[in-house]
């Protein structure tokens, strides 16, 4: 990380000039850049254990992070619960700094300063946010409550989750892949998703620069020849819709060529009540999701 950055500065500002005073300036600049790099590459939080930093960090967290991670860092509809001891993208201070500063490719976690919400944070402020997260997180990884093996049996068996959901390459395609959901969502969110899946629809594709992710809306499309397709919206704009039907076939439609197009926020996923899935069995399924997600 640090070497290319320094080299970039040196090339950019010192590449062509050869006069002596400029070279001195360059040397100074490179030294300064080196100091910055040293701070960046620092792997320990300079404010570790400082309650005042945690307090300031809480303000930063509310302005920059709460939009997705919720007040108190307990997770929201979009962002994982950060009060867990185990963080999916690394637990060390350096890992957290990198995650906040650079974002997580392939997820909705953006690089620092690149969002609509909140401002870009300075390095000091990022460390303060880390102080805050440390102050609210559990001291030790939570013991998974529930029977992971039984949860897996249910997932692929009688609960029929795998009809629509995939974990680590095995299962259905109609619903979201759940391989990492256990670490990316709070337990409350997982329970709600099973008991009342229509309350908050799962989020699908996030496009670069687009503010809001596509949700797993239910769609019914009737083509000009009166063929009816029911499924989920993979993506949509004003003029087109990309969907997967319940037989896992992709359909790419221009809306004005369809006979009708109806969307619903009633999820295609059935709500699992106590009769279908007891609290005990739900706990086991979530235990399986957490166990897989933690891998």
């Amino acid at each position, binding site marked *: 990380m640090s070497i290319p950055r320094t080299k970039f500065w040196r090339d950019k500002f010192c590449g062509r000039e050869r006069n002596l005073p400029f070279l001195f300036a360059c040397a100074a600049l490179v030294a300064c850049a080196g100091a*910055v790099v040293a701070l960046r590459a620092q792997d320990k939080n300079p404010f570790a254990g400082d309650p005042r930093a945690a307090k*300031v960090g*809480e*303000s*930063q*967290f*509310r*302005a*920059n992070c*709460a*939009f*997705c991670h*919720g*007040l108190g860092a307990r997770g*929201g*509809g979009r962002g994982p619960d950060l009060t867990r001891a185990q963080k999916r993208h690394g637990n060390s201070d350096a890992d957290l700094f990198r995650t906040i500063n650079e974002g997580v490719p392939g997820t909705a976690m953006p690089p620092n*300063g*690149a969002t*609509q*919400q*909140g*401002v*870009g*944070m*300075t390095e000091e*402020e990022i460390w303060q946010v880390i102080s805050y997260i440390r102050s609210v997180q559990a001291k030790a990884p939570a013991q998974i409550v529930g029977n992971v093996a039984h949860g897996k049996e249910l997932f692929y068996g009688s609960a029929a989750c795998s009809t629509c959901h995939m974990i680590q390459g095995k299962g259905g395609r109609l619903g979201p892949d759940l391989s990492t959901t256990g670490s990316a969502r709070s337990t409350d969110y997982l329970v709600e998703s099973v008991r009342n899946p*229509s*309350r*908050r*629809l799962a989020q699908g594709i996030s*496009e*670069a*620069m*687009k*503010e*809001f992710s596509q*949700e797993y809306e239910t769609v019914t499309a009737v083509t000009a020849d009166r063929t009816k397709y029911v499924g989920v919206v993979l993506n*949509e*704009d*004003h*003029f087109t819709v990309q969907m997967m039907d319940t037989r896992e076939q992709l359909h790419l439609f221009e809306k004005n060529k369809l006979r009708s197009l109806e969307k619903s*926020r009633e999820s295609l996923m059935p709500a699992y009540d106590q009769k279908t899935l007891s609290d005990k069995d739900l706990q086991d399924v979530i235990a399986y999701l957490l166990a897989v997600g933690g891998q």
Partner: protein
Amino acid sequence: MKRQTILCTIKSRFLASLGMRNLIASALVVSTMGTGGAPLIKAQVTGQRLLDSAKEPQNWLMYSGDYAGRRFSALDQIKTSNAAMLVPKWVYQTMAGGKFETTPLVVDGILYGTGQDNRAFALDARSGRPIWQYQRALAADIRPCCGRVNRGLAILGDKVFLGTLDAHVIALDAKTGSVVWDVTAVDYRQGYSITLAPLAIKNLVLIGVSGGEYGIRGFIDAYDAGTGERKWRFYTVPGPGEPGHETWEGESWKIGGAPAWITGTYDPATNTTFWTTGNPSPSNRGEGRAGDNLYSNSLLALEPETGKLKWYFQFSKHDEHDYDATQVPVLVDQGERHLIVQANRNGFFYVIDRNNGKLLFANAFAKVTWSDSKDASGAPIARKDASPTLEGNRVCPGAAGATNWMSPTYDPQTQLFYVTAREQCDVFSTAPQAYEAGHAYYGSAYFPNDDAEPFTGALRAIDPNTGKMKWEWKHPSPTWSGVLSTAGGLIFTGDAEGNFIALEAASGRALWHFQCGASVYSSPMSFAIDGKQYVAVAAGSALFSFALP
């Protein structure tokens, strides 16, 4: 000789191709091109040319197209009957990340734009090929609140003017991009930045600052276009002894915010320039700044030579929801009525008498829950229970507003006002926060409402006489695209899904669209060269131009 030949070609093609409606305007352009002999390319954009921008519809001389802020193009080659045939002509890539918010200028065949991280460029507007490119070396610790963005340039004389993320005002040579002068408006370390396109009036360059998220004290500046010397500064938060100072509790005025981060407008008839201001700081916590907090969230009528305040109108008093009034204040003339029209971030559409700042009426144009009553003047009043709370309080519009900085347009042909509306409610939370210079200062958090209501948006056509909606074009999700109207009976806008769209101005019927590949965070414009009309818009990292085949 070569130049003359080209220009003659331009002239004849231009006249031949433009519709009847613009023949008179085009003839005027030609008559100013030269006296007696062969016409010359006009190197200088004089103050008079800016005043007379309607006479040269082939050019786009300022951010909103004209001093009235109408974002209306009098070009009518592209019209309802042929808009379906529009095709891309060229694409210019900045290759920079982040939001690309520029509205380019076009003067005599050259396009001047800005990009992310304070890039600026001049292109051959016919081919999209760059003539010069500039990028400012920015410090690592600049404080842009909401992306490393810039919305455009102003032009006057032989210079273009750029406000920078480190709060400098810079004049670049229009032919080379060389820095002619560079002045520090203010120390960026205090939380200031500049993102707007400046406004040139007479020999002055007017500019305002961003920083409402950092507890700055906002201001509007005027600089001598030739030298960069600052001629005046109007603080948008009055100091001790000044009228309005009493609307701030204790020392709160020193960090009161009220940034001016969208380009103003100008009425030559009364020699008044109109500017709008943003939220008081901290944006989501009213405790500690009791009072109306003038002139936050206000419309200011200023004398351009001196910065003297003629009158003001405050849209959201003692705001706790980040309802910046930084939407272009559009001047609308309807018979004897001289109006300022603004669809405000707080969800109300305001029509104001621009001679005195008196409110004529205010109507909601989007879902509003922060206000359920109006005072004697007709101005919306905040509900007591709409304030943010520690646990969070759901209020509409949300923090991004019912609209935002994206430009609206006023079409003098349909006499309708078109604005991008965002339907998004948020849960507003507040918590105490100590001010520290140069650090983000919100006193708050906000997050999406938790009730499964999808966020949507729409382009709405509003009659300024009644405030009533004539039609709307629904967006699948809220967009940050502005709106352009043209004399061809068209409205152009973009969406978050990446489409750039032409609609019939009278009805809202879609006539054409093009998928740009990334959300549109900019306001479109139109120009002509070689007698060919173009429409341009920034999306993703690219500036697109479209024309008939």
